[in-house]
Every structure is written in structure tokens, then in C-alpha cells.
């Protein structure tokens, strides 16, 4: 088990957004988190990486226990160095080239020598098919290309797990495929991933496990095949039908 979360709670302005989330991720798992808008999917991921401070919760990461409310600077830095985050709107560093975007986490954050960092960065960029754009700036790239660079930036630091928050939601439809195929490739190679997504095809065929969230709670979770073919909860059935219906319309 690489990651386990117990009793994660979070309120914003007095309103409880996460009501006791429990989930776990095995090494090599690709876990898809599904759920309607506002159900707390983004907030869950952000709490895992301490971009939000949870009100309560325990995180077991790679065998070490962390209090999600009280974790100190040092513990947070420790976890962040073992994880990576891919954002919906890429969040590339606008003043850095593609290569620099990927290198910064290695040179600045981890003190790796420039030459070595460059080698690792080029390898990661090759992996996502962006090796021909090393000296481009983010503003010169399409959304799909930017997201692939963001994935390379995540990969370069050799994380134990990558969190994805709707990585294709900001993309034009014709660009979604190139990002999904990179993610599919990573899944095949055994990368551990926790993916918030609305891409049912990805959840169904690529992920090993699915979590369905609604209104700050996990309604149902289980192996992907079982989840789609034989959902236990009425709400899950409704959601799957709704999404699939939408896809056909």
C-alpha cells in the first residue's frame, strides 16, 4: 500500500465539503475518482498534497503516518517530494522554457546537477512526445502540448504517485486524445496514479479501481469492471446512466 487516507474532513466557510473520506491506493494502481461537480474531488486531491490543510484526517504514505491537519513544513516537503500533481489548467511556469519547466523540480528543489537534470528532463519529455519543443515557452504551445509537458514535469521527479485533477477538462476535444494516450502509456508502465476525471472511457478501460464521490463522501468504490458492470449503490447506477446517456447525446 503506497497511500491510505483515513477520516479526511474539510470545511470551507463553515460548510463541510469532505465528510470523512477513506481511501487507499496500492502500488501500480490507477484509481479513477468520479463524481458530480462540487462533490469534493479536487479538494480531496489538494488535501493529499497539502495544497489545502485538512481539518482532520490521517495519511499513511509509504508506511509513514501523517496527521493531515497538523503536519509540519518538513513533513509536507517530504511528502511533496515523493508525489506529483497534474493540474486541470497545466500551471506551467510561464517564464521558463519547456526544458526548464521540467528541470526546475530537479535542480532547484532537489539539488541535482544541471547536466544530470537535463538528461532526466529530456528523457521525460521524450516519453510524452515533447522532445522537439525543449526551448519553447508554454505560451507557444497548444493546451494538449502544455499538459504533456506538465506530465513530463511530474514524471521527471520519479514520484511514487501522480495525482491528476481533470487533466483533460480544459482541452479542446481534438486535443484530449494525445493526453489520454500518454496517461494510458504510464498506466501500462505501472505508474501509480490517482485520477479525477470525467472521461468514462478512461475510467472503465484504463483504471484498475474506481471511486465514486458525491456530496463530500465516497458512495462506492471497487474494481473498475465491477463498478461499471455491477454497481451496488442506486446513486452509482444513476450516475453511470446519466454520464453514459450524456456521452451518446
Amino acid at each position, binding site marked *: 500500500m503506497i497511500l491510505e487516507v483515513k477520516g479526511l474532513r474539510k470545511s470551507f466557510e463553515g460548510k463541510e465539503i469532505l465528510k470523512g473520506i477513506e481511501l487507499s491506493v496500492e502500488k501500480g494502481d490507477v484509481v479513477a475518482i468520479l463524481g458530480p461537480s462540487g462533490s469534493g474531488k479536487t479538494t480531496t486531491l489538494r488535501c493529499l*498534497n497539502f*495544497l489545502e490543510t485538512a481539518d482532520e484526517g490521517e495519511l499513511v504514505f509509504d508506511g509513514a503516518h501523517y496527521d493531515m491537519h497538523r503536519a509540519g513544513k518538513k513533513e509536507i*516537503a517530504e511528502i*511533496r*517530494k515523493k*508525489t*506529483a*500533481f497534474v*493540474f486541470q*489548467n497545466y*500551471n*506551467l*511556469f*510561464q*517564464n*521558463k522554457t519547456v526544458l526548464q519547466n521540467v528541470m*526546475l*523540480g530537479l535542480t*532547484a*528543489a*532537489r539539488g541535482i546537477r544541471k547536466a544530470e537534470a537535463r538528461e532526466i528532463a529530456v528523457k521525460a519529455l521524450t516519453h510524452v512526445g515533447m522532445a522537439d519543443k525543449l526551448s*519553447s*515557452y*508554454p*505560451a*507557444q504551445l497548444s493546451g494538449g502540448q502544455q499538459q504533456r509537458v*506538465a506530465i513530463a*514535469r*511530474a514524471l521527471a*521527479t520519479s514520484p511514487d504517485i501522480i495525482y491528476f485533477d481533470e487533466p483533460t477538462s480544459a482541452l479542446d476535444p481534438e486535443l484530449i486524445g494525445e493526453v489520454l494516450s500518454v496517461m494510458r502509456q504510464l498506466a501500462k508502465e505501472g505508474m501509480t496514479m490517482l485520477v479525477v476525471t470525467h472521461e468514462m472511457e478512461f475510467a472503465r478501460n484504463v483504471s484498475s479501481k474506481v471511486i465514486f464521490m458525491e456530496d463530500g463522501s465516497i458512495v462506492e468504490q471497487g474494481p473498475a469492471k465491477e463498478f461499471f458492470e455491477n454497481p451496488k449503490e442506486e446513486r452509482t447506477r444513476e450516475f453511470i446512466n446519466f454520464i453514459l446517456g450524456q456521452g451518446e447525446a
Partner: protein
Amino acid sequence: MDTRLWKILLEAFPRLLGYGITVTIPLTIISFALALVIAVAVALVQYADIKVLRQICRFYIWVIRGTPLLVQLYLVFYGFPKLGIKLEAFPTAILVFGFNEGAYMAETVRGSLESVSRGQVEAGYCVGMNYMQIMWHIVLPQAFRTAFPALGNSLISMVKGTSLAATITVMEMFRQAQVINGRVYESLGLYTEVALIYLLFCTVLSWLQRWGEKKLGTYGGKKA
């Protein structure tokens, strides 16, 4: 035009330009440097939301921006000696210009810092950088690029603003024009002449500003 006036203007030119180069420009540069240091410090305190200091900074900006520069000069030069704070005219001018423009520039710098998307800062944390590293590699370079044109404008307006130092006896370029005029009574000619020298300084600065903007580039984005 009569030859007397030409002679006066021709003789005045090197004197005026000399005071411009030896007083107006140094006064501008030192005041601007002070303003820049204050502006960056005040902006960073607010950006990082440092509790009590933040209140002090807001108070400073409120007071400076809500009172006239000329009144600030008079208050410090003629008023403060009553409190036992006595300064020469030149240092007074530097302090007042520096603190005055610093308040305006602080808002420019703060706006530029805040214009760097929160998401880039979060991405910085996620790749393992700490606050200082994120500021140094990501936020400050972008904020500097954004602030550059506005800071250039501040510098240009400061060149002109230093003429107010004449009112507290600083012998700078404009006061020198007044002095010469006191002898020869050629207001139209002399004040036109001094205006043209200010115009020259400002024109050179706006060329430098444009050159600097080009040099800094836009990170592959559209022209700002």
C-alpha cells in the same frame, strides 16, 4: 529674435545642462533607487501577508498617496526641524521623493506579484520547491517583467518631479533657471529652454524603457 536673447540662452545652456547632469539626474537616480527598495519591501510584506507589518505598509501607502508631494516636502524641510529632526535640503529631497514614489510603486509591484497565477505557485510547491525558491525562480521574474513599463513611467515622472526640490532650496536644474532668470528677466526663453532639457532627459529614458522591454521579451507570449 534679438541677439541678446540668443546670447543669454546660449550661455545658459551649458549651465542648465550641467546642473541637470550633476544634480537632477543623481537626485532622480538615488531617489528612484530608494523608492524601488521601499516598493519591493512593502509589496513583498503585503504579498506574503505578514501580519502587523502589513498594517503598517497599508498605513504608509494611505498617508503618502493621500497628501500632496509639495506639502510633504515642506513638512519635512520646514516643519520637522521643530521636532528636532533637521536635514539638509538635498537629503530631504531624496527621502521625500523616495518615500513618495515608493508608495505608488509598491502598488505597482504588488499588483505585478499578484498577477502571477496562484496555480504556478502551487505547481512550484508540488515539484518540491520551497517558498523562497518559488519566489526567486517563478514569481519575481514574472512580476518584474510585468512591472517594468510602469516602473519606467515612475522613473520618468520622477525626473520631472525633482523640479519641486527647487521649493526647498535645492539648487537643481529648474532652480538654476530661476536664478538666471532673476538676473536677465527672460522667463519665456529660459523656461522654454529648461523644459526642452527635461524633454530631452525623458525622451532618452523612454527610449531606454522601450529597449529594455524588448530585451526582456515576453516569454513567447503576445506583446504586452
